[in-house]
């Protein structure tokens, strides 16, 4: 799981805009998903991670987690551009999958493990789910007061 930690940390890093994916529990979103809903995809996903580590070794003689942040970003960009070999079917597909799961963890309900403290929703200025919405909350330009609640009691 250290490789997932390292990848999500570069996809959504901590910075002045707030905590990143690692700090808000996104790795535990991966862990819980692959132990449950996505269990049938676990094997394919692990193959992807193994391909990533093998490619990192081939390029830099070390695993992804050991690369510098700049090297990691460069590596991820190469994966996204489909320039890294050894993946099935290709590196772009794996990049898109890991990015999609990162977004799900970061911006999904905190009950699923990520988005701790509603940091993801605050980042994109999503004002949170609510059971009823007034006309005032559907005006242009007017900020809506955030309601930091989980539909399932997550935090």
């Amino acid at each position, binding site marked *: 799981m250290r490789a997932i930690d390292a990848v999500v940390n*570069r*996809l*959504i*890093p901590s*910075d002045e*805009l707030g905590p990143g994916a690692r700090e808000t529990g996104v790795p535990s979103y991966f862990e819980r998903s692959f132990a449950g*809903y996505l269990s049938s995809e676990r094997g394919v996903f692990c193959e992807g991670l193994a391909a990533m580590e093998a490619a990192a070794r081939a390029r830099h003689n070390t695993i992804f987690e050991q690369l510098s942040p700049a090297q990691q*970003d460069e590596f*991820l960009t190469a994966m*996204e551009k489909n320039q890294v070999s050894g993946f099935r079917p290709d590196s772009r597909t794996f990049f898109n999958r890991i*990015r*999609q799961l990162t*977004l*799900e963890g*970061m*911006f*999904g*309900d905190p*009950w*699923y493990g990520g988005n701790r403290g509603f940091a*993801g*929703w605050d*980042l*994109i*200025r*999503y*004002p949170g*789910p*609510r*059971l*009823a*919405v007034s*006309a005032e*909350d*559907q*005006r*242009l*330009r*007017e*900020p*809506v007061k955030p309601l930091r609640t989980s*539909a*399932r009691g997550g935090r």
Partner: protein
Amino acid sequence: MAIQLKSVDVVTIGLGGAGGVAVLPLAQAGLKIAGIEAGTWLDPHSFRPDEIYNNVRGWSDSVQKANREVPTVRNSLNGPILPRPAVHPMMNAVGGTTLHYWAQSWRLNPWDFHARTRTVERYGRSAIPVGSTLEDWPLTYDELEPYYDTVEYAIGVSGKAGNIQGRLDPAGNVYEGPRRRGYPMPPLRSTGFTELMRDAALKLGWKPFRPPAAINSEEHNGRPGCVFHGYCSRGGCHIQAKNSTAVTTIPAATKTRNLAIFDRAHVTRIGADSNGRASGVTYLRGGKLYFQPAAVVLLASYTYENSRLLLLSKTKAFPKGLSNNHGQVGRHYFGHWVASGNGGVIALFPFDLNVWYGTPAQGMVLDDWADDNYDHSVLGFIGGSNLHVYNEMHPIQSAAMETFGGPTFGSQWKSFIHQSAGRWNTAHLQTSTFPYEDNFLDLDDTVLDPLGDPVCRITSLPRQNELRAVDFAQRKMEEWYMTAGAVRVVRRPMNPPGVSTHAYGGTRMGDNPETNVVNRWGFSHEVPNLGILGASVMGTSGARNPTLTVQALAWRTADHLVKNWKSIAQ
């Protein structure tokens, strides 16, 4: 051996948007109905504002029959099977996908029923798309109008009429066919964003209006008006303001005591006797196999499953599958070309849109570029698109937004979505789609469901007519967004539709048994006591959502059965 049950008057396969409507007129007429449904009742208390549960995982704890038989898709005749979608877009439940649909409840426009004749009249025979098997419907808009009206009032539809008995009202859709009266409820309230888009459309000289929806805009039939909480798309309504058949026609039918519902029941075959009549259905429930005999069988599963069940139901009288002696089952299939999201037009505005909440039905639409509402002489295509902008955006969906060439991760991307996630929009462009010779459904022997039956295979090729029509609609949409103040707009190319919530054909309706499976009343040409309900009978899509037309046709087929019971049931 299947356990033989006592015969009933009518057995329906599926209690969703179509079957769930048909059972009401049947039950009211006193017919005894066995309603076989793969899913079960879902509890509104379990409906949550939860994007992962609703949208990402597709209600994963509901009955997953559809997900275990997702059709395979290929975009060329001998081409590879495309990657399987993560979840089937339809669901199994009492009420079916009307539990989580957008509830857009459109009537088709008169042109859609006669696209072939009107096209030849106005543009000549050569304007009919090459390779298309387009036919006029065997009925007119005016013949379907009473049933549209009945269903609008039976389930409850909100909207603004644009044409009441020929009197036009520009607050509604002036392009629609004449209706006998207005909607039972006013349209859903507008929002800052829909008003912005309305003003822009008016500036362009277009005719915007608010779309019709099977969603209460005010208290109706003892259920409350919509509270716009923003989890309507693929979400169940926690206050039952969405007029799913699960809260409207199905409970009304059970109240007559003439409808018995058998839930969690998986229909495996439709039986036929040696005289070529349907004898009943075989289904699996709780590990046991049952045979439900019936005087009349109504097949109302979904477009893919309608064709699949017929093709799987081989008997002596129908060696190629039930009602398929003319080889028409699965033919004239088409998925709706709907340009949206990654295959649509995406706009970025310089201010917050606040479209997080509401429902897609809370939108602004226009028909100026739909159907044959403009001159196509030099355009190289027929048909057109309904342009629809709307509310409701979920956080994961919103963060996954188009980056307009910028980075897709890291601090710079983070800063981009911080500002822009609440400022982008994508429209829903529904384009007239037509049937073609080489677009069809059949069985895929290489992919089996858990019972060992092949799944349905979709063959859906790129089509010049639809590609051009989508491109035209995207350019109009770009113009609309720019006029409304967007700072960036991109148009994304669209691929042929795959597994779709708007899937048509396979059991097309028409007078000619050589080219159609069901007659003008929805009964099989070959099997007189087999009725087929759903968009699988539709020969054109129109530029709008199919459900209300499906429901009007379902009511009409049921009504025909009641009025002709003796001759159909013998």
